[in-house]
């Protein structure tokens, strides 16, 4: 009797849970995704949105005044740096290939725009992971999608490459109009973009630039200019210590493009321009504050007075661990710089514990790709190697207030 009861009960429980989930899904579609914004042509657009053109209406949409939650103008392109000449030496060439991927690619013939206007197009954004940063990206993308009246969905694989591939297969099967993809891995991006291209779906990377090989199949690039920003950051750091000192680096996850932009490229930059900025050590303790703290404490023991600067790849957990270790050792003379503009990072800058951080607007990271998609469907020629970067800035104690409140 009890066995049967238990089975019945568990089945009922599962069912009720599922049903409640279903309920949530239908009640609050805007919460997580399926932001079928201001529905213009939601259902019909799935298969053939080419039927009717709304080009004129689409071109009329004015987005120049859309603002992010930090009060900065959202849909504004940053400076696109010119491509540096291609070096010949092997390691320098590898770095160049990462930094300028997609900038001088000989592309496959691009999938032509239908030029039927952006309104009502089904655009899928495939993200990387569920993290407060990505929540802010979603918010930005949603704001932009609402402005453009796009039938917009966000799919989040939560860091799982296998799941991301599933989403791509799904997007192909559902014949969506455009895919915005933040590849979880630069090299794995090749197959992903190739698949989309072969299926005739236009796609472009955002947030992270895949390898040059993958860019053959992509429409354009939208990404934060990590390399450029970090050179600016490195420059301001070097100037503040008169171009002389010992630098230690805490890296992002090795192998990814943030690793090269935030660590290796800075090291190369110093080697070239400020030869007296010596690299002391490089460690990858991940994003656990106590571990970063220990690494820095070990550095202070090991290098003593030689250590004058620390470059972090993350301005929350890493920067907190670093600054606390410095405080405990009484070494507030050591200058710290970091990437990103989370609330924690900006508070640290304001308190004078961190010298400078980069401005990487999470909301713009999600919003600007949407603008490019709009241009694509509105028939504006993007050019063969279009690259759009997010607005750049270095945040120091002087200008930190203008970037408040933080996006995440």
């Amino acid at each position, binding site marked *: 009797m009890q066995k049967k009861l238990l089975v019945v009960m568990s089945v009922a429980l*599962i069912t009720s849970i599922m049903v409640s989930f279903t309920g949530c899904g239908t009640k609050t579609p805007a919460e*997580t995704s399926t932001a079928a914004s201001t529905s213009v042509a939601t259902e019909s657009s799935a298969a053939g949105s080419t039927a009717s053109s709304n080009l004129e209406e689409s071109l009329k949409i004015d987005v120049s005044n859309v603002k992010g939650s930090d009060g900065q103008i959202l849909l504004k392109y940053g400076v696109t740096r010119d491509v540096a000449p291609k070096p010949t030496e092997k390691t320098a060439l590898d770095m160049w290939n990462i930094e300028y991927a997609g900038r001088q690619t000989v592309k496959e013939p691009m999938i032509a725009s239908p030029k039927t206007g952006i309104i009502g197009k089904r655009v899928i954004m495939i993200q990387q*992971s*569920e993290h407060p940063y990505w929540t802010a990206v979603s918010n930005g993308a949603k704001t932009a999608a609402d402005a453009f009246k796009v039938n917009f969905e966000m799919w989040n694989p939560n860091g799982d490459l296998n*799941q991301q591939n599933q989403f791509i*297969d799904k997007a*192909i099967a559902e014949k969506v109009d455009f895919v915005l993809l933040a590849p979880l891995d630069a090299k*794995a991006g*090749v197959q992903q973009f190739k698949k989309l291209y072969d299926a005739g779906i236009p796609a472009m990377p955002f947030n992270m630039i895949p390898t040059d090989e993958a860019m053959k199949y992509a429409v354009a690039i939208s990404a934060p200019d990590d390399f450029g920003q970090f050179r600016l950051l490195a420059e301001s750091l070097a100037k503040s210590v008169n171009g002389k000192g010992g630098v230690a680096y805490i890296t992002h996850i090795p192998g990814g493009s943030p690793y090269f932009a935030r660590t290796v490229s800075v090291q190369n930059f110093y080697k070239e321009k400020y030869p007296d900025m010596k690299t002391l050590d490089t460690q990858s303790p991940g994003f656990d504050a106590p571990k970063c703290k220990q690494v820095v404490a070990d550095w202070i023991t090991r290098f003593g007075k030689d250590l004058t600067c620390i470059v972090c790849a993350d301005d929350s957990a890493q920067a907190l661990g670093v600054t606390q270790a410095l405080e405990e050792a009484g070494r507030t003379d050591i200058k710290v710089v970091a990437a990103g503009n989370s609330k924690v990072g900006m508070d640290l800058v304001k308190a004078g514990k961190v010298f400078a951080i980069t401005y990487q607007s999470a909301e713009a990271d999600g919003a600007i790709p949407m603008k490019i998609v709009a241009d694509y469907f509105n028939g504006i020629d993007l050019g063969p190697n279009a690259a759009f970067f997010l607005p750049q800035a270095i945040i120091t104690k002087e200008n930190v207030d203008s970037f408040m409140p933080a996006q995440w």
Partner: protein
Amino acid sequence: MRKTKNTSNVLVLKRFDNSKIFESLNDNRIYVFLILVFIIMSIGKPQFLGPGNIVPMIKTSLLPILVGIGFTYVMIGGNFDLSVGAVINVGACIVMGEFNRFFAIFGGDAGGTKVLVLSWVIAIAVALAAGAAVGLINGLLVAKGKVHSFIVTIGMLTTLSGFVYTYCKGNTISADNSKFVDILEKPFLNVPYLQVITIRFVIVVIVLVFFEILLLRTKWGRALLMVGSNKEASWQAGINTDKKIIWSFVISSCTAALAGILFAISMNAAVPNYGERGINPLMLVLAATIIGGTVMTGGSGSVVKTAAAVITIQSIFNGLIMMGLGFDAQVLAAGVLLALVVIYESYSLYKQGLKKGERVALLEEAAELKAKKKIAKSNA
């Protein structure tokens, strides 16, 4: 008062224990779950059953299904293998790294198809051998060194994740020639639903069926089941228990390495940190193995049921995503499902434990006596 309640319970339980339908239903409950999930999801979202959703979903399940085979074997032997997550990456990175090495040695693109095939064969063999070596070390430490498998494999997990990073110097490795990739992922038939049949799919199915038959239909497999349920007794019965356990670990690492190999080739990229973010494949497989009905202490289980459990979990994830829910709902659903199964299993064992030693016949007699007395009383 209490006694009557007790006896009635016993009687009812007894009746149900005899009911073959219930028993087989309970044994195959994972299939019931699977069908139930499919029904609920397709009611919630009719597109769920479309080929555009089912095919990608099954493709995604291939990796955890392969890993689940070995994991189930180890758990049947009464152990845990927590190192599988890292072995996936070892398999993936080594196959790519070694392919590039041998491809270059043999002369690269100039060598033609022969060189290509030869390089792939060698690379896959090396990667599988690396997996087998890991399994051998795990197995030796557990069986001969008498260290608890939980500890050995945690140590192995740490060691291997460090090793993989050092092996690929932190970079993603992709093969210098991607011809093989397209062959592996190309569907045989371009028919809806049957698009899922690619070489990768066929390999997984063959491995799955092979290990299911090995486990349930051969002397070797029955012996492993016996080792899991009672090590002492099987040793007394003349089974080389140590050898069985070592083999189970070797199988586990080999299937995990194979999963990594196929995954890497299908994407033409081997990532050193796959599984470090999101739901760890290890956790997914562990949950699937339990939900699939493998007994936690060993001695019973089936790899096909584990595979069905993997698909069940994936369909829950997939359906929830279709309903517009995020990772929070997925992880919650996985947790609740796992918790329900664990509680149900333990509760029935607990009930058995309470029943142990009770002599049903005597209780029946007591009940009859009591009933008689009651009748006598009412008559009086």
